């Protein structure tokens, strides 16, 4: 069984693993590197629970081949908090009770981070359409959208 040896960077750290060619990045992150923060909700790119950043671009890691990570930068939920300090999105999700079961939360936080990195002052509608690929069945989205808008305001204050 020929396996591929993939060297990549995950959350700023060098990482390597062996994987089968048809294995997707989500499986490699979870089963090869033990980073179980990204979740499989559907395996077909329809739920967003597996969202990661690939070279800064928001992607569904279930529809990326693990081999494609070679020489690329992968950011997962485990890399959002820096040095043990929660990112403002993580803090606001807690303060706004923007999660219940929490299975979709990693995907939402990575996706919201990708949004705020690009658009520091999004409208409610822009947030809702950007996050339309992240399914949540517990919250009805209300508190999630408020947490993201509040995070944007907080980040703008820090820059101002």
């Amino acid at each position, binding site marked *: 069984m020929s396996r591929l040896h993939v060297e990549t960077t995950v959350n700023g750290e060098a990482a390597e693993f062996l994987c089968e060619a048809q294995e997707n990045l989500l499986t490699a992150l979870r089963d090869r590197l033990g980073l179980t923060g990204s979740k499989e909700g559907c395996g077909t790119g329809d739920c967003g629970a597996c969202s990661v950043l690939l070279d800064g671009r928001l992607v569904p890691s279930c529809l990326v081949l693990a081999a494609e990570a070679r020489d690329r930068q992968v950011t997962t939920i485990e890399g959002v908090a820096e040095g043990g300090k*929660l990112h403002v999105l993580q803090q606001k999700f807690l303060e*706004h009770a923007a999660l219940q*079961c*929490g299975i979709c939360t990693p995907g939402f936080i990575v996706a919201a981070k990708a949004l705020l990195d690009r658009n520091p002052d999004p409208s*409610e509608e822009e947030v809702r359409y950007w996050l339309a690929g*992240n*399914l949540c*069945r*517990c*919250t009805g989205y209300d508190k999630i959208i408020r947490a993201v808008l509040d995070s944007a305001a907080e980040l703008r204050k820090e820059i101002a």
Partner: protein
Amino acid sequence: MSALLKPRSEPRRNFKYVGQRPIRHDGPDKVTGRANYGADFTLPGMIHGVVVRSPHAHARILSIDTREAEAMPGVKAVITGADIAQNRAQVSMGEGSGDMHDVSENCLAHGKALYHGHVVAAVAAMTLTQAQAAARLIKVQYEKLKPVLDIESAIAPGAPILHDHLRTEGRAAGAPDRPTNIAARAVLERGSLEQGFAAADLVIEREFRTRMVHQGYIEPHACVARYSPDGQVFIWCTTQGPFQVRGACAAVLGMDLGRIKVVASEIGGGFGGKTTIYLEPLAVALSRKASLPVKMVMTREEVLRATGPTPGSRTRIKMGMKKDGRLTAASVTMHCESGAFAGLAHRSTAMCCLSAYRIPNFFIESHSVLTNKPKVAAYRAPGAPMAMFPVESLLDEFAQKLGMDPIDLRLLNAVEEGDAAPYGPKYGPIGYRETLQAAKSHPHWSAPLKPNQGRGVAAGFWFNAGLNSSAVVTLDADGSAAVVTGNPDIGGTRAAQAQMVAEELDIPVERVRPSVGDTDSVGYTDVTGGSRVCFATGMAVIQAAEDVRRQLCARAAKIWNVEAEAVTWSEGAAHPPASLDKKPLSLKELAAQMARTGGPIIGRASLSAPAAGPAFAVNICDLEVDKETGVSRVVRYTAIQDAGKAVHPSYVEGQMQGGAAQGIGWALNEEYRFDAEGKMENASFLDYRMPVASDLPMIDTVIVEVPNPTHPYGVRGVGEVPIVPPLGAVANAMARATGVRFTELPLSPMRVLEGLDAKG
């Protein structure tokens, strides 16, 4: 201390920690990805299991040849129906007493495949890829039978019979005793229909239909099972009830309960769909054969094709009303499509449909009907949404015809304390009128509407369960505390439990560590479901904390050398009798001396709580409809609900908003679609259309608090009612926006356009 509990004392009104919004203790792990769910767990030497599912909706299984699969390199075990004996045991399964024969038959078929996707075999191998390849080598010979795919064909004379031995439970007197697809029937009756309809000035009769829909939890079912050589079994799984998994696996596999330990992972959503078992007994059986731990994780397609949807329904309803708006009579005949095995929706639909209104004369008859579709499971107030949707639609039509405000019309007929529920007993204190009044005074109700917009209002009801709960509160030497219960926490109940302990012991919420125990570390606890955790388990937590307080007073008495009864407790400290000139001893001081005053302090409580006091909700929905394409958008939504007492308001709001979104999805776009062969056509999140973030506005919430006397804080269950009103609220908004009374859900663009064209 265990008791059949029914305190009638006045619920407490002023609180220090209850009613606040602390950050949930399990939050940081969830926002950083550290929280472990069903599929996030591995054991040394673990192998991977997959199942083989029937490609036919109705077929006899003639033979299963597993030799080639078993010979494949890496394959460690293959099981079929022969490996799990059929059985008849009765075990309490979230849904009241579940018949274990159906549950085990649904986990692994014996002789007959009853729906497309029904499990017929399972295989475990070193890698998932090998297991999937081996599964394709298992040769199953079927004899295809004609599938039964809708209510009409299921109950037609001469219909193919799914279960030959089955007779209708609760069938009408004199009904023939022969094979049938009607699994069960429930009847409720009061007064005389004839007199009721004779007295009516206005009568409306219609037929309503809803489709099977899925709970839609984002986390697929997953478990890891290890069968040790000495017969001890360890199961890690995502479930709403570790004790129910243990009980069901013990019954299905014929094992002692004491041999099985179940650890509930963090649960990625359940809504009732994880109150039963699917993979767990298969993983244990595979592990027993392979003598290695086995991990099984469902794909989304498997979850949709083969795990519990809620029943589809057909409701024929006729209601009579006087000119002044008073209801005089109602006749309701319901058929619930319960999939390949008997469901329980006939009971809850019968009990819920007229639950909110005073109706002197009614006849309710509801049936569970078998079809070759996946076995239904509980889905948030199971039965209530499809039972109340027809009633709330008719009331809206009556209001239009009488020119009355639809909320006033409901206030005129709303039940209150002392009224007899349709299922018999008198209601205790309930908040339906207060919820209606709050809806009427809400700015949303009087806000102006734009063109092509309509506003709908509808009510919802649910019993809320009591059942059994246990709790342990331990005090630490530094005065902090921990609380352990057996209820997996989806909606924030750990935070609420910490608030209750903080309230009883007067220590900050952050100094209380709430956790979910496995089946070895806390007393038996019924399922997380039935909106019961904050109510029943909450009561056990409060009593366990009271038990700690009692022990602290006893320790203080020992220090002061007085009788324990002489010591009183208030403001977080033990107070000496007036006769003794001693400073009160604080919890912190007493905790520090535990070792010297008698050892660790452990507060324990377990109870069997009565049903928790029904809760009502009212929703207001504004819908904008594109009349050229039939596409509609919810542009404003308000949910109002009686919580009795909101222990953690953010998470009560969360239940209200989440339930509204599920109800809106059910009303607008969600449905199971089957082809002519009985194969689900839309078994993916692409075509099983749940609401996405851009589909919904903010969902405003109003929490009404009419205390429930059976709980020391007045708490009522809140988790299930939220999904009941939206079906009626959205449908009534659609009727107001389009002038067409739609009676079949979902209100997809296609159906709306057809309705508009028909109206001309």
